[in-house]
């Protein structure tokens, strides 16, 4: 094939070459921010391009992931769960074993290295379940930068162990009371802080959403999950899995797992949204299955909203999934049909949580409990030699109080 035929980044048959140079994933994504932030997100993009081309940046990132985060995370064959479900083999990517207990740290390491390259001296972040807040506070402590975490007042209440962790790590926690005091409102306050402190502040966004280049760079930093899993699958069973499953709030753990497999046509993918009390009512957080495209927090994507474009509040038992939007790449992957999306209820997630505790001796976070519930539904109808790989993206220590309350147990 001649050089003119080289098919690299512009390969139209690839699902892995999004976004375009304006940060658009098809109709989604983009840079819908106030003018004050525009020069900043453009600078961030330039700086990210330079970092991508800098082997020293990659080396430092890899080194911290290995020696500080504890990567690669194990690939684990859940044999007792497989047996209990009676169908496909279930494997887990064990990102709950990372330092700080979730996948969030992968992204925070990447972003704080960018912040330092850009000479920023103050870090802000939003958090829902508190996992991203803990991960951000952790990297700030590690690099000696002051850290302000915006957290919905309601989430401060239901995630008190993580609030204390962040304080131990030296972060300042700002409870947000506007709106209903959840993740969306925390993100609004984060953006308000950023717009007033653009000169010295770096905003570490916790999921693959927000203005370009955030959805791309968060995905890239999280893709270590899928790259490792791909190699580990080859090493362990000599082939790729048949189905990938991951829970979706903003969608960063799912994209991290899915993205390196997107051009493997035999690998199917299932993203699992939070159906809360059920998709029939308003008490869910399933933006893709129950929302419409719109613009919020710097990007165009599927949103929970009314007919006038007012954003409605999500609901989920899991604070980390309780967000009315979703990363724009998921919106594009849904429309393109490459990834299938489903939703499971609070109750189903709670059952899956207990199932994993009892069959595998692993207490999962409520977020991946949604993925496990979806696995439980599909595994039994798949042949026993087929392989499901699910992302166990966080551990459940933080959730035991919520779970105890739901189970009517006093602790």
């Amino acid at each position, binding site marked *: 094939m001649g050089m003119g035929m080289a098919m690299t980044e512009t390969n139209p048959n690839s699902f892995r070459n999004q976004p375009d140079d304006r940060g658009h994933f098809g109709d989604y994504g983009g840079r819908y921010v106030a003018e004050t932030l525009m*020069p900043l997100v453009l600078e961030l993009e330039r700086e990210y391009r330079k970092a991508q081309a800098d082997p020293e940046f990659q080396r430092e990132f890899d080194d911290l992931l290995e020696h500080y985060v504890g990567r690669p995370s194990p690939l684990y064959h859940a044999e007792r769960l497989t047996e209990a479900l009676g169908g496909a083999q279930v494997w887990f990517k064990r990102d709950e074993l990372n330092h700080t207990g979730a996948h969030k740290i992968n992204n925070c390491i990447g972003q704080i290295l960018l912040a330092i390259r850009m000479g920023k001296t103050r870090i802000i972040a939003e958090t829902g379940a508190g996992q991203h807040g803990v991960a951000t506070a952790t990297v700030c402590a590690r690099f000696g930068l002051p850290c302000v975490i915006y957290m919905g007042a309601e989430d401060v209440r239901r995630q008190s162990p993580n609030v204390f962790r962040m304080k131990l790590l030296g972060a300042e926690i700002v409870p947000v009371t506007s709106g209903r005091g959840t993740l969306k409102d925390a993100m609004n306050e984060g953006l308000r802080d950023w717009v007033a402190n653009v000169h010295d502040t770096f905003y570490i966004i916790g999921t693959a959403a927000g203005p370009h280049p955030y959805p791309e760079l968060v995905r890239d930093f999280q893709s270590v999950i899928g790259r490792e899993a791909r190699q580990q699958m080859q090493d362990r069973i000599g082939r790729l899995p048949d189905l990938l499953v991951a829970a979706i709030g903003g969608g960063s753990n799912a994209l991290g797992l899915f993205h390196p497999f997107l051009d493997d046509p035999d690998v199917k993918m299932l993203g699992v949204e939070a159906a809360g009390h059920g998709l029939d009512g308003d008490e869910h957080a399933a933006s893709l299955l129950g929302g419409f495209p719109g613009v*919020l927090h*710097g990007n165009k994507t599927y949103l929970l909203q009314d007919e006038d474009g007012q954003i409605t509040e999500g609901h989920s038992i899991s604070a980390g999934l309780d967000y009315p939007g979703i990363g724009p790449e998921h919106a594009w992957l849904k429309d393109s049909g490459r990834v299938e999306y489903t939703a499971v209820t609070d109750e189903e997630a709670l059952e899956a949580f207990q199932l994993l505790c009892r069959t595998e001796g692993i207490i999962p976070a409520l977020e991946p409990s949604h993925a496990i519930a979806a696995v439980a539904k599909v595994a039994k109808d798949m042949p026993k030699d087929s392989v499901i790989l699910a992302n166990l993206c966080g551990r459940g220590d933080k959730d035991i109080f919520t779970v105890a309350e739901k189970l009517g147990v006093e602790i």
Partner: protein
Amino acid sequence: MNETDPMSTSTRLSNAFAKPHPALVCFLTAGDGDTAANLDALVAGGADVIELGMPFTDPMADGPAIQQANIRSLGKGTTTADVLRIAAEFRARHPDVPLVLMGYANPMIRRGPEWFASAAKGAGVDGVICVDIPPEEDDALGPELRAAGIAPIRLATPTTDDKRLPAVVEGSQGFLYYVAVAGITGMQQAAIESIEANVSRIKRATDIPVAVGFGVRTPEQAGEIARVADGVVVGSALVDLVAEHGTDAPAKLRELTASLAGAIRAAR
């Protein structure tokens, strides 16, 4: 194009900025208090341009005063149809006073940009300020507004450098809104030296009028800015009066607007 609205939108806005004094642009959130009576008070007090806020659940660029106004308005059940009706009734009462809608992208594009441009035109709206559609995303609404004869009013900020300024100015109509502080509405005021330097920098890049807002609360501040800009935007201070005085707000609004207008007229 509209029988009840013979004056073209660009004429109303350009007339406002062709007066012998800089224009006073007054902001209120639609559906917060008795909006019709409050808007009439602004006009009676001497407002040259009315900026009507479309309430949104997530007003990310706004400080506490306007956030609360949004919450109050939405709490009363204000819809997009209500906002457009408030605009249309204002237009019927004040055929000569320019009216611009200010808000966020999502409520504007929910039914499609053509729908919004046409509905706004039908309501006699002259311009639209959309906080979260920068020039890079102009395709989301700009072409439809321009086709309908509505001015897309862009924002420039202290962070808009000279390299970016041409892109901001290009396709902007009516006036350019200079956001005096890198921050949210209703908070601190920028130093007048910084405002003067930035306004003259912007005016080197464009012929359209430049109005200055964010952090302007008092007649003294308005007068100071009026010496260096084509217009002064006041929002949170007016919204605070609506919050504080409820049905008695019109008299207070008229009083503050008159003193702002007086300071601006005395400025040069």
